[in-house]
């Protein structure tokens, strides 16, 4: 049923795209139709995949490092008042700075290679992960904490055995958000300064009026992002195995 709906949606979008091409009479170097893009994708597949592999590495590395740093910061913020005092304002400020403005600086500091793109992805992932985990750690069911107190549990035991697992569903939703924005970070990095990657390929295609190649690269990027999202989503639902698979639906019926 879901697959059928997805297929219908995809076909509908492709049809609408083709209709816009016919109706506007735009030349292929401005707006190529789906068939032209498919042809470009087939013709330049090796080139596109080479660049896609680099972007994929940037995204995945950024996601891993960002998720680790974010979880660690969330934990520190929840565990230590001092960390809360010093780190929290810093975190808010870091979010007030637009990542796009930082991109050229990162390229300047870390070079045209992988490092600056990974750093961009980390920057963009870090905040949602930290915020979600910290929030989850602060919202432990007070009944559990009271029970632990009567059981004479130490602070660390409570944190490790109760607060952290209780916050995992919140961390998981933070990681889902992070996964959906990670490709943005990597591609922005490539856009600003790079010698490889899908962003680089798209920039070049654009400059040479190869709109079909640009669209083909875009299609691959979108497919990668969607695939990554679903992979991470499955992994996360295994991590929080005690949560109902589709909480929204479950609660609607069972209220």
């Amino acid at each position, binding site marked *: 049923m879901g697959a059928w709906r997805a297929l219908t949606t995809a076909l509908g979008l492709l049809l609408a795209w083709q209709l816009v091409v016919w109706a506007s009479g735009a030349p292929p170097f401005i707006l190529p139709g789906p068939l032209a893009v498919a042809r470009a994708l087939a013709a330049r597949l090796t080139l596109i995949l080479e660049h896609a592999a680099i972007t994929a590495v940037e995204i995945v590395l950024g996601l891993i490092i960002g998720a680790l740093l974010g979880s660690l910061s969330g934990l520190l913020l929840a565990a230590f008042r001092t960390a809360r005092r010093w780190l929290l304002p810093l975190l808010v400020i870091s979010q007030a700075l637009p990542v796009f403005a930082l991109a050229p600086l990162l390229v300047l500091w870390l070079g045209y290679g992988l490092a600056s793109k990974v750093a961009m992805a980390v920057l963009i992932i870090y905040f949602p992960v930290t915020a979600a985990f910290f929030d989850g750690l602060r919202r432990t*069911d007070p*009944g*559990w904490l*009271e*029970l*632990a*107190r*009567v*059981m*004479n*549990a*130490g602070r660390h*035991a*409570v944190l490790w*055995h*109760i607060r952290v*697992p*209780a916050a*995992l569903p919140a961390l998981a939703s933070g990681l889902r958000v992070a996964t959906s924005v990670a490709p943005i970070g990597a591609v922005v990095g490539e856009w600003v300064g790079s010698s490889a990657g899908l962003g680089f390929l798209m920039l070049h295609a654009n400059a040479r009026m190869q709109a079909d190649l640009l669209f083909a690269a875009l299609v691959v990027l979108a497919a990668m992002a969607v695939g990554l999202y679903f992979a991470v989503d499955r992994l996360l639902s295994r991590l*929080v*195995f*005690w*949560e*109902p698979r589709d909480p929204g639906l479950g609660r609607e019926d069972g209220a």
Partner: protein
Amino acid sequence: MPERPPGVDVSVAQLAFDASPLFDSFRFRLEAGRWTCLLGPSGVGKTTLVRLIAGILEGASVTADDGRPLSGRIAWMAQGDLLLPWLSVLENVLLGHRLRGQRRSRPELAARARELLVRVGLGERLDALPHTLSGGMRQRVALVRTLMEERPVVLMDEPFSALDAVTRFRLQELAARLLARHTVLLVTHSPLEALRLGHRLWVMTGRPVRLREVRPPPAQPPRDVTDPALLRIEGELLRELAAGQEVAGWAPGAR
């Protein structure tokens, strides 16, 4: 049980959550090695009293009559089951030991926990997660978790409320046997339960609260529930509690 259970003295000078004080020069005593049952209408302050004794709420002086501190000698069973959703039934039952890092005597503990779970009818569900259990089953897990603490003073806030009548009857007997010679406070809505299990019975009413003692039949608990004397007192208590609710502004049909 290794130590002789202490009696517990509670006194609250004054405690108010709003304009009218809930407790005012209140004194209460749990006799050493006896079951004290507390009856009273909803919202009168029974749960608050339990939380004061457990040390979750501040505002009362709670002392053991053997002069030693009470911390570490109380087990608490809340109205909700407070099971951790990511732990199996067996792990939930051993939560106190996990939180205190007492892993040395694990095999004996696990064996004891298994035995108790079998006796409350959950022998087949040791590895089940809480969300797969019914409300009554969850309450039985919480009861076993409370028993596993092996504390001389046990506070139970409506421990059998979610159980069907037959299971309730069986578990009352089991709890009475396993917690004989413990100092127990049992909060309940059921006069029959209180009359069956309590050495001492108190009815809590009013604001600030007052206590009135009810004499149970002379037999030792758990008492025979077909005893006419016990049933007569149950009837009187039900009538009294119902009259109390009418005075408090509630009567059937008149919302």
